[in-house]
């Protein structure tokens, strides 16, 4: 499975850390889009070309939680999982991200590759199903056209 993932963090090193950790998992092959903050992510966001978003919380210009809210307010983005990757561990923040804003998963730094795999396995199954549905839909379209 090939995953198109957006990684949003104001730190280049932290983006690298997330991307390297994801590559070390056995979940998928990855193609990454990088964004420096929430505003940059929104500019680069295309629901037709993304499978998942990984976003830090604390960033200048637009933080991660506002990014989640803005993406969820857009049409046709429900199928794209958003994973908060953050050092914010307070339960109130977790609830805000998952229950109020609409993030799908919450990963606290620091994390191991194994922890990442455990947290993401279900989400990646969902992405695989979405990709199968989409390919089925397009193959039907092709047959209909033919």
């Amino acid at each position, binding site marked *: 499975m090939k995953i198109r993932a957006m990684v949003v963090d104001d730190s280049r090193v932290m983006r690298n850390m997330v991307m*390297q950790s994801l590559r070390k998992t056995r979940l998928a092959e990855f193609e990454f889009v990088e964004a420096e903050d929430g505003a940059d992510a929104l500019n680069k966001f295309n629901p037709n070309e993304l499978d998942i978003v990984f976003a830090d919380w604390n960033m*200048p210009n637009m933080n991660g939680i506002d990014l989640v809210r803005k993406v969820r307010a857009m049409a046709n983005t429900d199928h794209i999982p958003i994973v908060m990757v953050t*050092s*914010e561990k*307070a339960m109130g923040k977790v609830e805000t991200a998952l229950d109020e804003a609409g993030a799908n998963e919450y990963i*606290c730094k620091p*994390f191991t590759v194994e922890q990442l795999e455990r947290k993401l396995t279900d989400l990646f199954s969902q992405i695989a199903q979405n990709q199968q549905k989409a390919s089925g839909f397009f193959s039907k379209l092709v047959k209909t056209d033919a």
Partner: protein
Amino acid sequence: METVECRNKSEMPCALMDCITEAVTSTFASIYGREPLEKDGSSGASDGDSVLGIISLVGGLQCSIVLGLPRETAKAVTAKFAGFEIDYDGPDMGDVVGELANVVAGDAAGRLESHGIKADLSLPTVARGSDVEMIQQDKTMSRLVHYECTDGGFWVRISAEARPTARN
């Protein structure tokens, strides 16, 4: 590096101290797979080149945390944390140590929440220098804790207002 002794160590709220020291222990245990050892306050002081991660907790309390990493510890810890080597003299060192301070403070904020204290994190600041002297201010109480992890010593200075009050 010179450190100034805590003037009001006995007044540091136990919950605050515990939450931050547990956060430090938990963060380094996550990175190394084993907890760092807390050392006697006066030993293991880090003279020479160091990088400092500075972050504040604000809201239900006013508190600042300084994470002091001597050069060799900084190189080793950041490599473990990031998963790749970080140049001590390069700009990436600031990113990683700032993130490390962020992780410690985020963990502490989560623990404080269970004591009914809501705390938000400031953006971290990172300083790099040699023989940096930390100066305690009159209106704050401060506690310096030294640790030893697998790759060397480091220290954490916790400073808080004299009488923290619940503001949440």
